[in-house]
């Protein structure tokens, strides 16, 4: 009997600690576990008894890669609870800071975490020896994302300026102008990134996924919209808990999220693109088409191109916002806390991030629920591997392992987020 194990004890170039275990018997996959061993940190538990206005600073600490996402989902949930709506330039500034996070996080993943897989390097630093100009350009593009976050948020990681109701301080128009000049360069660099990623070699691998993302009538989604899918889901964020459930499995410190009665689903750049292509800026649409993409993309390996299209969109959108910006009169709306339940769902770089809080009449958090994108993609990642491995089963273990890792990195999994996640092991019997 021919059997083997593929095992990666500590998956590299993902955020956090994860592993993969695959057992193969007679050239068939008999077991797959995408494991999350990142130690649990219990955020939902210690949010109890904190005040509503502490949520953005505390939940930011779930993830150093996408703190803005946590801050945005939490402030939107609180504002939903207290019945206030942040609009106008304050709302625009929130979109702008989110553009910064997408540019920074996506560029990091495209060039430093994912591209080395396609080109056969262990990391971007080795890649830089053969592709110095590309890696330099990547670092500068990433830096501009960070500059947006730092200018509006105070610093790149765990920004300090986001609050329920708005910001502590808002920038003057002239403070944003130097960014505009830099963003014009970034938009060109992002355009080149789309063209460059499209030249990479992609395995022929398409699946019939259920994509889930926000959809907004006027814009590509960041902070608001209805939760929609390509298979008929169309609900308000308030109804999230009626349609999605979290399952606790033994091999993971992250909860697996599924759609009730339907199972696994797919969140992130590919989902957003498939559900919102028409809302991308004309330049982003045109560039996607020019490299041979249509409005539908079902190959998760091509997520590297889609991420680049989203970086291009974010540069375009950031420029639009800066051009139309006028400093708002007040940095934040006033909040009158009262007993209520609030729901928030925003598009983190890796997909929808759901927050729900129950607040008492003094503004204290009674309970909290947080569902990060990676825990929603876990099941889909395992399904992909179940389909992908049989197609490549003849490869020797080291190459098969590398391909499995690449298939996982398609999702840019953020394991620190999911644990509130991974080791790779392939077992052949």
């Amino acid at each position, binding site marked *: 009997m021919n059997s083997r194990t593929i095992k990666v004890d500590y998956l590299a170039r993902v955020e956090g600690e994860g592993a993969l275990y695959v057992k193969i018997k007679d050239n068939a996959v008999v077991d797959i576990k995408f494991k999350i061993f990142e130690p649990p940190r219990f955020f939902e538990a210690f949010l109890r008894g904190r005040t509503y206005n502490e949520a953005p600073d505390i939940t930011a600490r779930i993830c150093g890669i996408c703190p803005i996402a946590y801050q945005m989902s939490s402030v939107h949930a609180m504002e939903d609870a207290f019945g206030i709506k942040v609009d106008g330039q304050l709302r625009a500034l929130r979109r702008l800071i989110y553009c910064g996070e997408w540019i920074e996080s996506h560029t990091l993943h495209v060039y430093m975490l994912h591209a080395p897989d396609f080109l056969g390097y262990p*990391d971007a630093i080795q890649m830089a020896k053969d592709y110095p100009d590309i*890696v330099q350009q990547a670092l500068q593009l990433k830096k501009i994302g960070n500059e947006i976050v730092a200018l509006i948020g105070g610093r790149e990681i765990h920004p300090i300026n986001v609050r329920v109701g708005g910001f502590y301080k808002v920038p003057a128009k002239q403070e944003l102008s130097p960014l505009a000049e830099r963003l014009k360069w970034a938009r060109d660099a992002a355009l080149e990134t789309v063209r460059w990623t499209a030249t990479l070699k992609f395995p022929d691998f398409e699946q019939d996924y259920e994509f889930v993302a926000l959809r907004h009538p006027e814009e590509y989604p960041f902070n608001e919209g209805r939760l929609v899918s390509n298979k008929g889901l169309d609900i308000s964020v308030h109804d999230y808990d009626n349609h999605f459930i979290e*399952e606790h499995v033994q091999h993971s410190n992250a909860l697996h999220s599924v759609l009730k009665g339907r199972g696994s689903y797919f969140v992130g750049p590919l989902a957003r693109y498939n559900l919102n292509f028409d809302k991308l800026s004309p330049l982003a649409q045109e560039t996607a088409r020019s490299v041979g993409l249509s409005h539908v993309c079902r190959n998760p390996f091509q997520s590297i191109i889609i991420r680049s299209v989203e970086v291009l969109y974010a540069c375009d959108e950031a420029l639009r916002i800066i051009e139309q910006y006028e400093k708002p009169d007040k940095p934040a709306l006033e909040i009158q806390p009262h007993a209520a339940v609030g729901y928030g769902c925003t598009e983190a770089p890796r997909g929808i991030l759901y927050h729900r809080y129950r607040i008492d009449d003094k503004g204290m958090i009674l309970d909290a629920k947080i569902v990060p994108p990676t825990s929603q993609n876990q099941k889909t990642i395992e399904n992909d591997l179940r389909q992908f491995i049989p197609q490549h089963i003849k490869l020797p273990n080291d190459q098969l392992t590398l391909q499995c890792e690449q298939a996982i990195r398609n999702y840019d999994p953020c394991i620190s987020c999911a644990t509130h996640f991974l080791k790779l092991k392939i077992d052949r019997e």
Partner: protein
Amino acid sequence: MSIKRKPKLAVWKFASCDGCQLSLLDCEDELLAVVDKVEIAYFPEATRAVAKGPYDISLVEGSVTTQHDAERIQKIRKISKLLITIGACATAGGIQALRNFKDVKEFISLVYAKPQYIKTLDKSTSIASHVRVDFELHGCPISKHQLLEVISAYLYGRKPNTPAHSVCIECKRRGTICVMVSRAIPCLGPVTHAGCNAICPSYCRGCYGCYGPKETPNTSSLSDKFSDSGLNNDSIMRMFRTFNACAEPFRKESETREIEEARSKRREARRE
């Protein structure tokens, strides 16, 4: 001509948000210069390649929260010439040390449906409470400029220049008007370790202590000042109990205020 080997740098992760190690990748202008001087020998967030130890410099992010990690840090210490902790999790236990004030079993059942699958220690603890640490870099997150300073200081065999004074001094240096004096905004600046360049006050909010306690902080005097301006003990307790909740001076102050709060509640109950 003798060719000297590049020092080996390793980056280790314990319970954390990954933000502090990301700071190294956020050095967009300096990263390629850094890797010119050191060999990235172990850094799973950035590379698949693993060079064997021992390592000249180990940067450790995160706190110890599992038995497995308590054993792992011992092994890391043995293969590291210099061990530097980066960030509030590694130096003080981090935000996850809020469990240290509560019953962790209750926490597990609040987050996970099947608590029997979860293996965790009762407390989240700093790296220094397990092994000898050569240098602690504060901050939640750390400052990437300070990280570069610490790495280059050790490369050239000098002491890192990371001032231990308070955030107040940084405000004075950059000319930020005191938010506590001018706007009566409660601010932890007087007792908080410098390093961030006093960002919060420059954005019209009080410092929330993410760099942890400075040397010899007078926390009780600051708390009294907060009380005078109308903050209750419960609010003061929460101010000291965040990202550095288990750094000794902050832990003591929050516990003092917790006891005070309990006393005043008992007094109120007797009056009724």
